[in-house]
């Protein structure tokens, strides 16, 4: 199986689907000639022309609305929002429009729209270019949310996103773009709502998504090497739909669970997952639930501060060690 960068895997998915489905078109700021801020769409203008790869004004709210309107008319637009922080500018069209239209207008017509956006910190971009805002959108019924952690899932989940009849927020890990991994050739769509065991282990379960999966695996490997503690790492892949069944099964098997989230602690996705565990697997818990999340602070530029605010492998390992011994 070929090794491929996460960013190239995303591009493979776009190419695969644009070749297959004439209705797919790309809309975003600097995605055409520039190739996207993170070069995911590099070369696609040359391949598909300006009719299907469209540079736009800097108008995030209208870009999402544009995609929604085009989707209602039967196209399958993929809108890129350059940084997930800029989703804030598009919240009205995402939450009040795209997410609600199918239900609100009596299920007459679906909105097959994908909104791709890079999330996460770790590059010193600071408070407005580093956030992970999945929790906001998970709180808005009608949006699916995919968060691939590996190059294979980047391709596989994006293929599925483009074929889904619903609006999908597709969260890309900013630090993952340059990660390499095996990616199947051809059509390797990965279904939504099926978590993946990223690392086997029987002492505790670490639940994560996007970049935190890799951090958790590294932390788990260190824990195994230093203390002989074997942590299972569960990669959720999609937050909506959420694979509660696999979460509950994993927790039932290990009896100890920890959730790792890059976004801030309060009202985060981790809080929701924790409650789902309470509802579905409480009787299996041998120790209180733990979470390792971003601190409740803006994400600072300075590396010395950023690494404190964001969760990372050593904080995950320490918490996992405590949980295993709780």
């Amino acid at each position, binding site marked *: 199986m070929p090794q491929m960068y996460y960013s190239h895997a995303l591009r493979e998915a776009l190419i695969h689907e644009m070749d297959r489905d004439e209705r797919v078109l790309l809309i975003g700021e600097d995605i055409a000639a520039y190739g996207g801020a993170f070069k995911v769409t590099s070369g696609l203008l040359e391949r598909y022309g300006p009719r299907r790869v469209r540079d736009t004004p800097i108008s995030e709210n209208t870009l999402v609305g544009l995609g929604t*309107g085009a989707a209602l008319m*039967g196209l399958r637009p993929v809108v890129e929002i350059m940084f997930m922080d800029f989703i804030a500018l598009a919240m009205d069209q995402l939450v009040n429009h795209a997410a609600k239209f199918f239900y609100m*207008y009596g*299920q007459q017509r679906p909105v097959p729209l994908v909104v791709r956006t890079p999330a996460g910190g770790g590059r010193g971009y600071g408070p407005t270019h580093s956030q992970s805002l999945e929790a906001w959108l998970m709180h808005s019924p009608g949006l699916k949310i995919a968060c691939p952690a590996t190059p294979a899932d980047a391709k596989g989940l994006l293929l599925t996103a483009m074929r889904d009849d619903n609006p999908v927020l597709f969260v890309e890990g900013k630090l993952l773009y340059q990660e390499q991994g095996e990616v199947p050739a051809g059509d390797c769509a990965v279904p939504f709502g099926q978590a993946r065991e990223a690392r086997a282990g029987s002492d505790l379960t670490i639940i994560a998504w996007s970049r935190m999966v890799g951090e958790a695996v590294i932390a788990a490997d260190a824990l195994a090497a230093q203390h002989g503690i074997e942590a299972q790492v569960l990669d959720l892949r999609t937050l909506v739909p959420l694979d509660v069944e696999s979460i509950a099964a994993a927790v039932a098997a290990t009896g100890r669970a920890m959730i790792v989230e890059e976004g801030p602690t309060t009202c985060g996705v981790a809080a929701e997952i924790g409650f789902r565990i309470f509802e579905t697997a409480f009787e299996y818990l041998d120790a209180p639930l733990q979470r390792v999340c971003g601190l409740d602070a803006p994400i600072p530029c300075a590396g010395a501060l950023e690494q404190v605010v964001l969760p990372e492998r050593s904080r995950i390992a320490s918490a996992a060690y405590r949980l295993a011994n709780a």
Partner: protein
Amino acid sequence: MSAAPSPALTSPDRLRLYRQMHLVRRFDERVMELFGQGLIKGTAHACCGQEASAVGVCAALGPHDQVSSTHRGHGHLIAKGGCVDRLMAELFGKETGYSRGRGGSQHVAAYEVGFLGSNGITAGGLPIATGAALAIAHRQEPHVVVAFFGEGATGQGAFHEAVNLGAAWKLPIVYVCENNLYAMGTVISQTSPVPHVADRAQGYGIPGVVVDGNDLDAVYAATVEAVTRARAGAGPSLLECKTYRIYGHSKGDSERVYRTRAEEATWAAHDPLVLAAARLRADGLLDDASDAALVAAVYDRIEQAVEFAKTSPDPDPAAAATGVFAGE
């Protein structure tokens, strides 16, 4: 703009549009009565007084052309060919409503007649309509989109973003402002630095046209020109229909403290239905008897819609949280 010849409306067309304006008027008057009787709940915004812009604009459109609407959208839907039974049922919260009772007055779509939806967010429909125009341009179809909005929407970034993008890409869309002077209770002169919404068009390099929004023929002619331009690939226009809502902002606004009864009287003398009727009479197409018969038929039609709504089933409570996602 240069005056382009618009296809003349035939006599039957003119009578049909006049009847349609009455249908819109009676629909929303009846809705307010039903609110008073407690038969309709929630909220609704009557477009009485603004019938000529809804009907005049949509008269210039074909069945494959698309319309996006506002919170005050009953007239737009009826003018685009929507069914008053299903619209009334929606206001009653019934399963037979266009949105199966999920949307209510402000959230109605009727895709089969090219109605992309009324919209509870001020200016929310403009990006959607612009996206529909993008799809039409993308497929090189000969259709156009009309985005209705009120003058209050010009305070929103979505208005400026959408018009800017539509103009930059020369999309087949007409941005139609129904300027009824008041955004809820705030007069436009307090919130806009320019006297006409159409003046905004200069900033986007597109034609900006002011028209008497209560004059059906004038609205129709201006729309035909803008639509012709859009179909030809020359891009959007901004058409401003100067109009006035007879009643308050919504059902709760009976006092209308922000405007005078004298101002209302001035506009009442310029009622779009009265204007249209006078022209039809002058041209020998309408007399007392035929006018009365037409209005009576409209009243009957609306009563049928009320009956349809009353006798329609409520949505199934067990389905309240279903249908959030397609295909599940």
